[in-house]
């Protein structure tokens, strides 16, 4: 039997820019990266031998279970999730329509763009002390922080998306006899939808950052306040477990957005990542 000839050497396959690698290799590398990170962590825990500061992965899993069973950590998760959803939905409900209007009408853009662009560079977390003064320590303050963090970014992203809709797409509709209103809701809006969902997905990730910052500063419940309390008791294991929980929640929302995108917009041409 003749051995199949290797068409390309190992280095040629793996070290050519943008060259595809076998699907199996992709999977091994993806799983391998997790194994590697956990391995390094575990090694560090063994070397340091101080569970107070560097708990092992196993210890963190045990702690996580303990947090759920004995400390009602799920309550904090629920509080955080509620704030995220409320703040994000309120921000998107204003940012998406306003962004669409700014992207399509120059008058609206000229009016809103300068202040929004300026505020965008003011970090949302810097507003926390001011908002505590104005709104107190309740839910309003947390939701407003998320709103500020998401709104000013999202509105400009949506504006760009709307602005990028090709003129010819609209012109075709006009030459088929469409009125301006028909062009708006039958061509312009659907042309922006897929990218808007992408923008929501990206800004959702940022919302988590602002929430945790707000909760770290002052909150009675929530993952952020849980982390702060854990710090006071020198429980690095709890802090790490809480951070990983946020990561997993982020991954779940991201996957939900990705699935929704695929189901709602099957017509979008896939760009290979």
């Amino acid at each position: 039997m003749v051995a199949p000839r290797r068409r390309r050497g190992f280095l040629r396959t793996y070290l050519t820019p943008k060259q595809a690698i076998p699907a199996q290799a992709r999977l091994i590398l993806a799983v391998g990266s997790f194994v590697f990170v956990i391995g390094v962590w575990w090694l560090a825990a063994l070397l340091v031998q101080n569970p107070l500061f560097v708990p092992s992965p196993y210890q963190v899993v045990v702690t996580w279970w303990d947090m759920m069973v004995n400390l009602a950590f799920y309550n904090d998760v629920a509080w955080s999730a509620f704030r995220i959803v409320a703040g994000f939905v309120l921000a998107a409900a204003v940012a998406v329509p306003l962004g669409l209007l700014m992207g399509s009408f120059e008058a609206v853009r000229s009016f809103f763009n300068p202040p929004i662009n300026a505020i965008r560079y003011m970090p949302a977390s810097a507003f926390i002390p001011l908002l505590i003064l104005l709104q107190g320590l309740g839910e309003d303050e947390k939701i407003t922080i998320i709103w500020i963090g998401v709104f000013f970014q999202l509105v400009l992203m949506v504006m760009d998306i709307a602005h990028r809709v090709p003129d010819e797409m609209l012109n075709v509709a006009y030459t088929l006899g469409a009125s301006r209103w028909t062009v708006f809701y039958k061509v312009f809006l659907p042309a922006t939808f897929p990218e808007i969902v992408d923008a929501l997905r990206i800004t959702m990730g940022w919302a988590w950052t602002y929430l945790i910052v707000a909760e770290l500063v002052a909150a009675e419940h929530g993952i952020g306040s849980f982390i702060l309390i854990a710090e006071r008791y020198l429980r690095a294991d709890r802090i790490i477990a809480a951070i990983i929980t946020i990561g997993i929640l982020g991954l779940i929302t991201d996957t939900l957005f990705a699935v929704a995108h695929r189901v709602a917009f099957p017509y979008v041409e896939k760009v290979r990542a």
Partner: protein
Amino acid sequence: MSEIEIRDVAMRFRGRHGEVTALERISLTVPDGQFACIVGPSGCGKSTLLMVAAGLITPTEGEVLVNGKPTVEPGADRGMVFQSYSLYPWLSVRRNIEFGPEIKKVPAADRRKTSSELIHLMKLDGFADAYPKVLSGGMKQRAAIARALAGDPQVLLMDEPFGALDAQTRQIMQELLTDIWQRYRKTVLFVTHDIEEAIFLGDVIYMMTSRPGRIRTTLAVDIPRPRTFDTITGPRFAELRNQVVGVIHEESLKAVESELARA
């Protein structure tokens, strides 16, 4: 009866270095059922002229009349096909084609009949329910032409529709377009920079110069129809091509000279 009359159309833009004349007093008439081609180098304003005819932009001077009516705004009587296809990616091929009839509130059964006919005619059978993303460039442009025809316009304005296609596909598309035109006999104003395409398709060719854009020569194409692939290899085709190439070469030389003179 659907005639396109371009009357003294001039277009000037305010550029960084003063006023730029894109079009200078252009007048021409495309009689009912004629296939007219405008050939010119890029930047000569031929697409601008088409946009004026569509009613998408307003000229600085003059007007375009379709059936004696000035084209002040776009309308379904003037269908337009763009180089970039501009199909709606969220609609199937069939829904794309039915877009015009749908906004005109044509009953669903009639719409379907029209789109089925055009899908067959444009050789898109089997792709009625496909999204544009799966189509090749040639198929996309066939669907876009079908969409323009489905609105049953009186005139068809085509802006370098085959400019983005490879040479082989372009040839096939040109043959298909002459067949379709023989069948529907729409008045067509077709813009291209491809001389052979203009000779193959047109009854008449208007050659434009650039900066300022104006019509330099008019040439009647006396090759009989129906035109097929053999037309291109015929002696008359070569004669006409040489004639056009000569004019354009002369024009290009002049353009270079005037650029040098300005420098």
